[in-house]
């Protein structure tokens, strides 16, 4: 529908023919701005002017139009519509002629010509003005975003907790329109640690300000009250009065006792944390506790629960920017996928990297991040910081002896062999067992370089060496994704010698015969071969 810019709704008219008698007769004629005449977009006059081909005599016009009445009251006699590219963009309004004569055909022609030239110029001026207004609006929004980001970053922890036997990792990725995600670690009495992950509804400065308020209240109340349920109840009651309409905060608050591994937690409507349990080999448990988001209703109660984290367990706290991310087909990344990836995790940092990589692959490069993403992990390790196994796992605590990468170039398997040999030097492997391990490592690394990474030097083969009291295990990972290793078959030497088969095809067979256990794991992007050798020859083992 045609609209007329407000600046053109004002009607200019010439000096009235009859001036007040107090004015000097010789005074020059003056222009008088008539009171504005508002023309509603649905007034029939708009349609009439849009279709008019030239100057319109207001006196002769027969239309049921409030605007027409307004024009007449303002003393307008003639209106020349300004039309640009078929769109009515303004009106040239004229009062009666000073000569008291009617507007002549020449006058009308002159006015029509003037309108024809003026309309495009007026349109350009309007567009420039609109564009300037848009730029100012954009600058204001950008400025707001910068302020929101500043507030947000101000309240993020500068460093991760340093607790013996525990590893923490965190990631905060703001969306362009900063959301209200936050996380925090709060030192509590008796060596306990408060862990917070939260999300304020809404975006920008309002969300950042609510986040800052919530953060401050949590910091003030957590060391005093300790119990997660009480802390959330208190924060909720303080926030309710301050909370702007239609806003609330979801928040997971947990208290960790690093000595015992006990984790007490309460949840104000935030995403359920996942625990990767080493004892259940890839299993995931959820830390569920019920509670309303903060700031909605007063006097809410929050369920408090407790879990004990075993050595090797990793907990993921996450905001919904991850699980609720969409790809171009509007499919959601999803909570099951987050849970499943958590179950495969052995280490918090690796888990975060993996989640972000999977998310990137899922949404694709074209999709802008919808919401803030916050990921916090805490993992229980054995004393000394090495990866751990569950207390009842055979072989005791697993310790890492080496972790390194080799570029995927033929021959680099020798680098892997040498580094693994160096790493296991202190384990007391006898000569033959060490040689067998070296051969298996060489073959598995060759396999990873050639078949997993396609001899592309920029793709690393990642090698880690771990040991416990009874075994040494070497894990060799390539980027071969879901490549499935073929079944290990005994090569048919007779056929090869007879020229009926290729002489090649010994690698996997050799690996299997060199080590005590061979296992492979795959995910979408990686392929890992795991070689395990007992530190001592079992009594009934091969001679």
């Amino acid at each position: 529908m045609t609209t007329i810019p407000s600046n053109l709704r004002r009607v200019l008219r010439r000096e009235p023919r009859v001036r007040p008698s107090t004015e000097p007769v010789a005074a020059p004629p003056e222009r008088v701005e008539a009171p504005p005449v508002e023309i509603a977009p649905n007034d029939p006059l708009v349609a009439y002017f849009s279709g008019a081909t030239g100057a319109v005599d207001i006196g002769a016009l027969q239309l049921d139009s409030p605007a027409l009445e307004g024009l007449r009251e303002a003393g307008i006699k003639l209106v020349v519509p300004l039309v640009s590219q078929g769109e009515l963009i303004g009106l040239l309004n004229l009062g009666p002629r000073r000569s008291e004569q009617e507007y002549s055909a020449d006058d009308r022609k002159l006015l029509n010509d003037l309108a024809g030239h003026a309309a495009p110029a007026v349109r350009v001026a309007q567009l420039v003005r609109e564009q300037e207004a848009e730029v100012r609006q954009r600058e204001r929004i950008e400025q707001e975003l910068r302020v929101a980001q500043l507030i947000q970053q101000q309240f993020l922890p500068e460093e991760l907790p340093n607790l013996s036997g525990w590893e923490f990792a965190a990631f905060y990725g703001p969306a362009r329109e900063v959301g209200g995600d936050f996380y925090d670690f709060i030192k509590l009495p008796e060596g306990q640690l408060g862990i917070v992950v939260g999300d304020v509804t809404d975006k920008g400065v309002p969300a950042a300000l609510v986040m800052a308020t919530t953060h401050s209240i949590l910091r003030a109340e957590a060391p005093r009250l300790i119990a997660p349920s009480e802390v959330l109840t208190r924060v909720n009651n303080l926030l309710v009065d301050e909370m702007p309409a239609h806003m609330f905060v979801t928040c997971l608050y947990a208290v960790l006792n690093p000595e015992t591994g006990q984790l007490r937690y309460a949840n104000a409507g935030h995403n359920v944390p996942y625990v990767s349990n080493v004892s259940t080999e890839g299993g995931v448990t959820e830390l569920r506790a019920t509670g309303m988001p903060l700031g909605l209703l007063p006097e809410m109660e929050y369920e408090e629960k407790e879990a004990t984290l075993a050595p090797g367990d990793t907990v993921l706290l996450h905001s919904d920017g991850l699980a609720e991310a969409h790809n171009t087909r509007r499919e959601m990344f999803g909570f099951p996928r987050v849970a499943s990836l958590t179950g495969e995790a052995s280490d918090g940092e690796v888990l975060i990297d993996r989640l972000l990589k999977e998310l990137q692959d899922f949404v694709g490069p074209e999709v802008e991040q919808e919401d803030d993403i916050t990921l916090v992990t805490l993992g229980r390790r054995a004393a000394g910081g090495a990866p751990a196994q569950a207390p009842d796992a055979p072989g005791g605590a697993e310790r890492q002896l080496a972790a390194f990468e080799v570029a995927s170039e033929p021959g680099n398997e020798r680098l892997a062999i040498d580094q693994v040999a160096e790493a296991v030097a202190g384990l007391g492997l006898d000569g033959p067992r060490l040689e067998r391990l070296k051969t298996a490592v060489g073959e598995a690394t060759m396999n990873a370089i050639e078949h997993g990474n396609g001899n592309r030097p920029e793709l690393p083969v990642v090698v880690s060496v771990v040991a416990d009291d009874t075994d040494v295990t070497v894990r060799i990972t390539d980027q071969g994704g879901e490549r499935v290793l073929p079944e290990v078959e005994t090569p048919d030497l007779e056929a090869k010698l007879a020229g009926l088969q290729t002489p090649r095809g010994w690698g996997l067979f050799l690996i299997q015969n060199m080590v005590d256990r061979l296992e492979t794991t795959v995910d979408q992007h990686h392929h890992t071969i795991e070689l395990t050798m007992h530190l001592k020859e079992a009594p009934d083992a091969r001679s």
Partner: protein
Amino acid sequence: MPGAEFGADVRSHDSTGVIDLHGEINLGADQALGAAYERAVQDDPSTVVLNFADVDYINSTGIALIVGLLARARKEHRTVRAFGLSEHYRQIFAITRLSDFMGIYADEDSAVSATVST
């Protein structure tokens, strides 16, 4: 590339072609090993002896090269024998069953004399 580059010397011992192998037997040894075999059979010996005493690494590709050499020798009705293998590679030759088709000896004299007595 780390490790010692492959090399091979050829000589004759009591009408037996002896190939002294050096360094690593891997993909890079392909041409040199083939050329050494060519030289070793120039005088059409009935037996070729491989000396592994100076070999410090054999990977699965190297195993494949030895299988290829053995296949060619058998086609030409020659016997292949070996000596100088470390305990580890003796085990690998046993696992791969190469030792079923290639006599493994402790030293050169036993390998050559076994050839002579054959």
